[in-house]
């Protein structure tokens, strides 16, 4: 790289990690991993969950101390005992779960731990000014004012604040861990622009992602990790998605979606919402039928999750009517929803779906507790081995049913959530981002399971921000925009049709005329 603006005098890459080893309580999670990144380069790090990506990055950021190997900056060995040490040397990390304080302002977050000061006093004016300047560099100073509370910002804006925070540290090496996980497509595009800008400024960027598409779009080199080892580093031009997946999972993985429902598989209407409204949703009407998977798409904040939460009684509808099997009913609480055979696989498994420190068995029985003993008997749910049976049906891989679920992988945790719901024999299942944070390999398994449940007669609603998933899985696609139903599309609609409805802008696609047809 001749155009590297950042000084690498001896031609050494800005960042080199050599033979990094790390053990956690005797378990080796990194086996001598090598990684390098030049100034002005975007280097992608890919691998399944548990491959060691996050641990490697935490070692780099000083949050973990390596048990072996060394880190070199400008060819000179460095060691960090604390994240602050790493920050001082220009290494910043943006974690997947943001490290921002919602109750503090943008400026307070950007300069947390390094507040500009005169003596012991924080120089608030200087802090706001410097924050505005950095945001200006990112072209975001109009939307994000330094004095705003971070909790009042959108997810994408919060991410910009994270980037601003890294820049305020004069970062030379920036690690981004799954930066697009919570972004809509347009927001992701804006992020890519910001990444390219940072690249032009000569930052070395380590980009961790599950999404191969964006890896190919951004990175010049790709390093694949598997089971704590480096499988290889490829120049992007020489890599293929198929080849990368093979390296990541160690086998060929042709990700296909299970076949959709045939018209005769789709049965009666299980659930009907007419004119449903909450403080976010307006006049929403939707039907779920037995045997059918209805996909819900929409931008972040369009009311996707709110729709599921309203149906499930977590934030109930204030307006409109809800019918279950033709019978009008008001669902005011999740407990009532469960008693009416509705299950909800939430977006945030750890916070809303599972009790991480309890066993698989206990988590599997959680939903059953919402039913009285009579209801359990009526549904034939008295068998002690029900959970065991179901975990076998979902092909859960756990050491035993007594294992605490926090020790399971994302995919297996999701299977425990499913077990919990299947245990109450639901007729309607709501999924919110069912494969978020789940390995490529395990994703197909979850998709297969969802389709299998539909085939058994379940009415399924599936929310997803990943358009390929919505398109691949759905028999019908409902698109939300600003709390309204923007339209409904048939199976196999294109990404551009969905985005057209979701954003209300762009090319008038072939399905635009159907906008009025839905619901």
């Amino acid at each position: 790289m001749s155009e590297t603006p950042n000084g690498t005098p001896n031609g050494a890459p800005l960042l080199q990690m050599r033979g990094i080893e790390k053990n956690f309580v005797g378990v080796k999670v990194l086996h001598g991993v090598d990684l390098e990144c030049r100034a002005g380069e975007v280097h992608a790090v890919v691998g399944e969950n548990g491959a060691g990506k996050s641990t490697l990055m935490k070692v780099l950021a000083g949050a973990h101390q390596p048990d072996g190997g060394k880190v070199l900056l400008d060819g000179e060995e460095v060691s960090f005992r604390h994240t602050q040490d790493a920050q001082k040397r220009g290494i910043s990390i943006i974690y997947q779960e943001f490290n921002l304080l919602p109750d503090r302002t943008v400026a307070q977050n950007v300069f947390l731990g390094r507040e500009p000061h005169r003596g012991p006093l924080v120089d608030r004016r200087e802090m706001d000014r410097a924050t505005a300047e950095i945001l200006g560099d990112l072209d975001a100073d109009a939307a994000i004012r330094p004095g705003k509370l971070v909790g009042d910002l959108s997810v994408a804006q919060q991410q910009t604040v994270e980037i601003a925070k890294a820049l305020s540290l004069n970062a030379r090496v920036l690690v981004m861990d799954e930066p697009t996980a919570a972004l809509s497509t347009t927001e992701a595009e804006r992020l890519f622009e910001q990444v390219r800008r940072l690249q032009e400024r000569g930052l070395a960027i380590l980009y961790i992602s599950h999404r191969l598409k964006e890896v190919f779009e951004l990175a010049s080199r790709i390093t694949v990790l598997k089971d704590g080892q480096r499988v290889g580093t490829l120049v992007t031009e020489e890599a293929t998605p198929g080849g990368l997946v093979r390296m990541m999972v160690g086998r060929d993985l042709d990700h296909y979606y299970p076949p959709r429902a045939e018209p005769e598989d789709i049965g009666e209407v299980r659930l009907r919402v007419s004119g449903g409204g909450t403080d976010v949703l307006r006049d929403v009407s939707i039907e779920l039928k037995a045997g059918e998977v209805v996909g819900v798409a929409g931008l972040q904040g369009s009311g996707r999750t709110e729709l599921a939460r309203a149906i499930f009684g977590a934030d109930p509808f204030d307006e409109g009517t809800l019918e279950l099997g033709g019978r009008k009913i008001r669902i005011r609480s999740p407990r009532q929803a469960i008693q009416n055979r509705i299950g909800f696989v939430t977006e945030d498994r750890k916070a809303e779906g599972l009790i991480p420190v309890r066993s698989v068995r206990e988590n599997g029985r959680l939903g059953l507790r919402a039913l009285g003993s009579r209801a359990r008997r009526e549904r034939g749910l008295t068998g002690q081995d029900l959970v065991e049976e179901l975990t076998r049906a979902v092909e859960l891989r756990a050491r035993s049913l007594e294992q605490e679920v926090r020790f399971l992988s994302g995919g297996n945790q999701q299977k425990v959530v499913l077990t919990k719901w299947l245990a109450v024999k639901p007729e309607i299942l709501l999924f919110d981002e069912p494969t978020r944070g789940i390995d490529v390999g395990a994703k197909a398994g979850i998709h297969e399971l969802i389709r299998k449940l539909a085939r058994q007669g379940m009415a399924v609603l599936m929310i997803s921000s990943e358009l390929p998933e919505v398109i691949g899985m759905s028999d019908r696609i409902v698109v939300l925009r600003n709390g309204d139903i923007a339209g409904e599309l048939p199976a196999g609609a294109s990404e551009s049709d969905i985005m057209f409805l979701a954003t209300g802008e762009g090319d008038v696609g072939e399905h635009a005329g159907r906008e009025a047809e839905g619901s």
Partner: protein
Amino acid sequence: MSAGSSSAGREKVGMLSRVRGALGSSSAWPIYIALVIVVVSSAIITAANGDNFFAPANIRDMLVRSVALGIVSAGQTLVIVGGSLDLSVANLISVATIVAATVMGGDPGMVVVGVIAVLIMGAAVGLINGLIITKLRVNAFIATLGTALIMRGILDANFQGASGSIPREFGFLGYGSVGPVPISVILLAAVVAAVWFLLRGTRFGHRLYAVGGDEETARLSGVRTHRIIIGAHVLCSLCAVITGLFIASRLRAGDPYVGSAGGYDLESIAAVVVGGTILAGGRGGVIGTIGGVFILAVLDNLFNLLEVNAFLKDVIRGVIIIAAVALYALQRRGKGAS
């Protein structure tokens, strides 16, 4: 969130934060509305009883009553903002009175030494609390309950009643005044101002909010979280022993039961949460806390004037504490939904 409701929500938030900014701490304003309501209704009830609520003597009496709880609560605010808690303040107050009275031993020449000894002792207890919480990773509730019990045991083993003697000269702290303003009230104002300034203006304060809001976020941002938590505990304990000095000055002696009898541990926590600081940390401030202290003091004053039965007093205070915190919770939920 839909465009319409979120922009309305943003406006509301904007207004709220402006008011908050003026008061110097987040969500402190409802407590002052409540305080005004309590004061006005007290004044009316008192007037109906033929007394004058706003009589200088009565006002002074209420303020002086607020001093002890106010100073402890200011310190308690610091640890609670930092996501911690201190249950040892009550017994520490007792220890402080004993140390002061013993070291001074009635000798005016020993006043300064006594004060320094008390402050060092306080700082040491705070340091120990902080170290137990951060280094031994003991939950703050248990850690400070433990140190509280240890101090209780030491007091019970060595002191049965009033001990030592405070020289008359030190009485100025409890009884003296500058013009019409009692020195103790000036002390309270100074402590509150210092804590307010610490939280609002200094790097320590900013980091304390961060640690209380999310310790891992603060740590990953390069904040040395342990130092911050330990610092907050040292300051909290210093506030407690300053309260101890004030009480000793009024009692003219050390009393091994004065802190626990005053219930300063739970009362200070109550004042902090009534003042809008969240028990989980990261949000709130000392201005709210002092509002909480005043509310409790005004109610106390009213109950005394009306000669309300002591048990009923506690029931009413309990109801008020729960109502206050429930209102904050509702307000927050309302904001979250908008």
